[in-house]
């Protein structure tokens, strides 16, 4: 059985993405496991189909001739073989030609009288000696220049290596900074969203019902909107009052915040405690993880976590405008879906026994985004919002795992929400 980590390494191997040490270690495993070897072959055959996905180009006609001229031809036997061996010595024929020429010159010179040769050679040798001295000096100068240029080249190469190293450091710093910036932008956007929810009621739009969604697997799942609001808002000394039945037909507890009892119940403002505040205390959601060393890997219940991967917990909230019968849903960091699965949105209304199917969520970048939704019914009052994972075709009733729910009603598959 090939586990996910090994399969991932095999994928990187066939794309030549492993480091030299990783590649050697993986090839050692390959030799020991026929199953892994088969899998690598399948992946290699698959990925190299991509070679066809390139615009067709015809190689130049000269290429094949060049290949034939480069390949080592098979040596023939006997004399041909000896000639072939001589052929492989690059300077053999020129050397032989020089020797023959030298022999011919020697025979020619030997035929002249020795004296004439001597006088002429003495004159020529004097002049040649002068030229030799000049050439020698020139050669030494060239050697000095060569040494100097060699030193300069070496210094330039060292400087270049230092610049290159600095360039890589800056690139990494740039990368870290961009991650940190992305994290801060994300947090800022969440805060803006929360501020939107918080401030709109202050402008007099009091008919908004704010529903908080929490991760159903979180230990904080049982803490609903009201509990969190009470806890958080009490801390800053605000007076909290309940405004039951503020919106007719809802069982949703709206929380009004009245500093010093200044506002009465009719002017109650909705407040929101987003799951972002909850999750900040939860493991795996700290900002420092963004710059975690990629070589570190955390063990999770699902096995080894991918190195350098930052895990956010899913969160979100929904706002429902009763007058317009339209809602917005903001979600953050929904987990990546398996193939052939979708996220489906449901609302629960006390007037209906079963959750109402709102529809499938569109594909969101990184599981984060905001969508508007309407329900094809009249006068709906959502008191719970559910996001479940369902098969791609969708489900008439929530059947898959609950990814987010809020504000804390009972699991619809276990019965109706609590009144």
């Amino acid at each position, binding site marked *: 059985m090939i586990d*996910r980590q090994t*399969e*991932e390494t095999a*994928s*990187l191997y*066939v*794309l*030549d*993405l492993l480091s030299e040490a990783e590649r050697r270690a993986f090839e050692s495993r390959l030799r020991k496991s026929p199953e892994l*070897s088969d899998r690598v*072959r*399948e*992946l*290699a*055959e*698959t*990925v*190299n*189909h*991509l*070679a*066809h*996905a*390139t*615009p*067709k*180009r*015809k*190689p*130049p006609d000269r*290429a*094949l001739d*060049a*290949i*034939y001229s*480069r*390949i*080592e*031809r*098979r040596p023939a036997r006997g004399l041909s073989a000896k000639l072939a061996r001589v052929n492989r010595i690059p300077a053999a024929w020129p050397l032989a030609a020089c020797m023959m020429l030298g022999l011919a010159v020697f025979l020619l010179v030997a035929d002249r009288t020795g004296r004439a040769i001597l006088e002429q050679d003495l004159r020529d040798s004097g002049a040649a000696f002068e030229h030799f001295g000049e050439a020698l000096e020139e050669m030494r100068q060239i050697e000095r220049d060569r040494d100097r240029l060699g030193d300069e080249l070496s210094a330039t190469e060292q400087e*270049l290596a230092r610049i*290159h190293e600095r*360039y890589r450091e800056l*690139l990494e710093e740039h*990368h870290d900074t*961009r*991650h940190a910036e*992305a994290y801060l932008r994300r947090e800022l956007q969440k805060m803006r969203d929360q501020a939107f929810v918080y401030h709109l009621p202050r402008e007099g739009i009091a008919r908004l019902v704010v529903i908080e969604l929490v991760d159903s697997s979180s230990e904080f799942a049982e803490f609903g909107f009201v509990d969190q609001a009470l806890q958080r808002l009490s801390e800053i000394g605000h007076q909290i009052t309940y405004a039951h039945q503020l919106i007719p037909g809802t069982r949703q507890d709206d929380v009004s915040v009245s500093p010093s009892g200044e506002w009465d119940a009719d002017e109650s403002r909705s407040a929101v405690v987003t799951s972002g505040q909850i999750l900040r205390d939860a493991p795996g959601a700290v900002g420092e993880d963004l710059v975690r060393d*990629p070589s570190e890997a955390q063990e999770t219940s699902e096995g080894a*976590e*991918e*190195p*350098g*991967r*930052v895990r956010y917990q899913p969160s979100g909230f929904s706002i429902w405008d009763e007058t317009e019968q339209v809602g917005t849903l903001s979600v953050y960091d929904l987990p*990546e879906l398996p*193939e052939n699965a979708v996220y489906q949105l449901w609302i629960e209304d006390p007037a209906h026994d079963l959750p109402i199917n709102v529809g499938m969520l569109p594909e969101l970048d990184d599981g984060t985004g905001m969508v508007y939704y309407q329900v094809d019914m009249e006068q709906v009052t959502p008191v719970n919002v559910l996001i479940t994972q369902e098969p791609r075709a969708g489900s008439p009733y929530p059947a898959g795992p609950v990814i987010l729910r809020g504000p804390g009603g009972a699991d619809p598959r276990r019965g109706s929400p609590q009144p």
Partner: protein
Amino acid sequence: MDNPTPMLAHRQEHDAEPSQLGDAALLARIGQRDESALGLLYARHSAVLFSLACRMLSDPLEAEEVLQDVFVRTWKHAPSYDPTRSSVFTWLVMIARRQCLDRLRARRSNPLRGFATPSLDDLPPCSDGRQEEERSYSEIGEMVLQKLALLSEEQRRCIEMAYFEGYTQNEIAMHLDEPLGTIKARIRRGLLKLKRVFPFPHD
């Protein structure tokens, strides 16, 4: 019809015209220093390999050098080819890609090295004298592109950056501004999806 016995198949292959031989049989003949077999293998696969090298290197002269290197290596190393590890086509493509990757990574490790190269547009399209569109693909190429379109944009981008552009995992992560783990997961999922839609070997 029954398959011929191994002995008969071997004799048939041995007696067959070279042009009718499969890639593996051609490679076996190349191992016996049959130059005509090398020419036939070249005729079958040189266009794909050259096109791949052109796309990876964006330099037709370097691509031609790679093409020559691939077939010179094929000539030298044909006896070491192991048919249980890959098809001949995959073997050739792996040699060509490795050559291209070495050149690409050498270029990137030396950022000051830059020089003008001839345009790919100067090259003739791969045809037998017929007029083709500027970016034409083979029949199998069209099919591969259709299968590639089944991947998500993110998966396709990661695989193409690794396969054609020779980026390392870290470079892809930096370029796309994504965590390294995300890049690895996208590559794994993308390849698994491709494996399901390419169930056949090349030979």
